[in-house]
């Protein structure tokens, strides 16, 4: 009788333990919220606080330190006038095919149109040496935003930045069209990766085990700022997993803006990059779906 009770008690305890263990796999991952535009928009604000940002005609972007303390525009209305960097929000280059002129957007919200006195723009690009860019190759330049004595940056570009909302759209387009590096200080660069189809990242999730994903599947990889925090990997389908992330190979390629190539060692990625974005899906920023009919509803 006593041995029978012991066996029954043991079986009950085992049943409880197994049920509890089965529930482990059903637990929500650490970061269950699906990624969305709210994860992408702040990137641009941080980039503009870190450095100037160049938008190229092909839609790519690159953070840079642009040489020159002032820019001169020959305007039909005001004649030749120079503006200092501190006065300027953005410079938009004209398009001969569209018959548009150069424009300087000021932090006051004013806008001046005319012809820029600029044969080429000298800048130090992230991941590259000094470069000279022709206005014909650029769509716009957003100058580094300094918070000193100015309104705080806002993703909606309040105050003097509202005029350049169209450029904000170009920033969004760039991350859907190109792979993007985000550096620890917030700077950005569109990149063309070599052997993209062979790249892979492995994440060791404490809940789900080890998985390997490719850039086709990955929206982005975020490397933790400190050793006590997990890396994060977001997939294009909206799933998100936390855990140590390792690249299966070095990242090599070149900036879309041209210039020398780069090579980032796979073991040094987390010190050299904050995030790697792999062509964020367009549907994140606009799309739709259906509302199926409910049974009996006509």
């Amino acid at each position, binding site marked *: 009788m006593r041995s029978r009770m012991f066996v029954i008690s043991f079986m009950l305890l085992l049943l409880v333990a197994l049920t509890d263990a089965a529930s482990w796999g059903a637990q929500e991952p650490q970061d269950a919220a699906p990624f969305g535009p709210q994860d992408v928009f702040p990137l641009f604000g941080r980039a503009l606080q870190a450095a100037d940002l160049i938008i190229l005609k092909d839609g790519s972007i690159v953070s840079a330190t642009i040489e020159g303390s002032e820019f001169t525009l020959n305007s039909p209305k005001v004649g030749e006038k120079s503006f200092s960097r501190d006065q300027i929000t953005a410079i938009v280059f004209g398009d001969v095919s569209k018959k548009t002129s150069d424009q300087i957007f000021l932090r006051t919200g004013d806008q001046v149109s005319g012809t820029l006195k600029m044969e080429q723009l000298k800048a130090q690009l992230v991941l590259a040496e000094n470069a000279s860019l022709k206005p014909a190759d650029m769509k716009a330049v957003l100058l580094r935003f300094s918070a000193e004595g100015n309104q705080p940056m806002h993703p909606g570009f*309040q105050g003097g930045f509202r005029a350049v*909302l169209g450029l904000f*759209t170009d920033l*969004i387009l760039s991350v859907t069209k190109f792979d993007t590096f985000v550096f620890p200080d917030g700077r950005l660069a569109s990149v063309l990766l070599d052997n993209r189809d062979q790249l892979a990242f492995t994440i060791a999730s404490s809940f789900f085990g080890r998985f390997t994903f490719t850039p086709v599947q990955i929206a982005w990889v975020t490397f933790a700022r400190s050793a006590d925090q997990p890396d994060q990997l977001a997939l294009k389908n909206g799933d998100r997993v936390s855990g140590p992330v390792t690249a299966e190979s070095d990242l090599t390629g070149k900036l879309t803006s041209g210039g020398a190539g780069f090579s980032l060692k796979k073991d040094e990625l987390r010190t050299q990059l904050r995030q790697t974005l792999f062509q964020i899906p367009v549907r994140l*920023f*606009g799309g*739709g*779906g*259906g*509302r199926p009919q409910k049974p009996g509803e006509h």
Partner: protein
Amino acid sequence: MDLRLLVAVAVALLLLFLAGGALMKKPVIVEEPPSAAPEILSIQFPKEFAADGSEAHGTLTFQDPNGDIVDARFEVVEAVLFEPFHFDPEVQNQVKGEFSFYLFTVIPQEVTLRVILVDQAGHESQPVEFHFQATESTP
């Protein structure tokens, strides 16, 4: 007598032959069945909505003689950044009716979409376009 009978039979056979040939040459008019493709009757959708990621809802009214629509396809004609999509509106066995859809965007832009309904046999409706403005959302 036998000869006259033979001639009569021969003439009859000849007449039958000629009549049959004429009948065979008569054109056969095949009536085409009515179109089985679905038809979009109307699309109701706001002319503008806020580009803040919230959903804007619309309604599409249709008719389909076979009641076998299986897909509603939304193609992008013009937009800054908008993903085309499609879905099954689940209106099986309905020869006339409506279904709902939603759109969203976080990019202020003008968008023109083209909608096509597809039935189980692959027949496509005539496309219908509609246009809307996603306006900048006030922070």
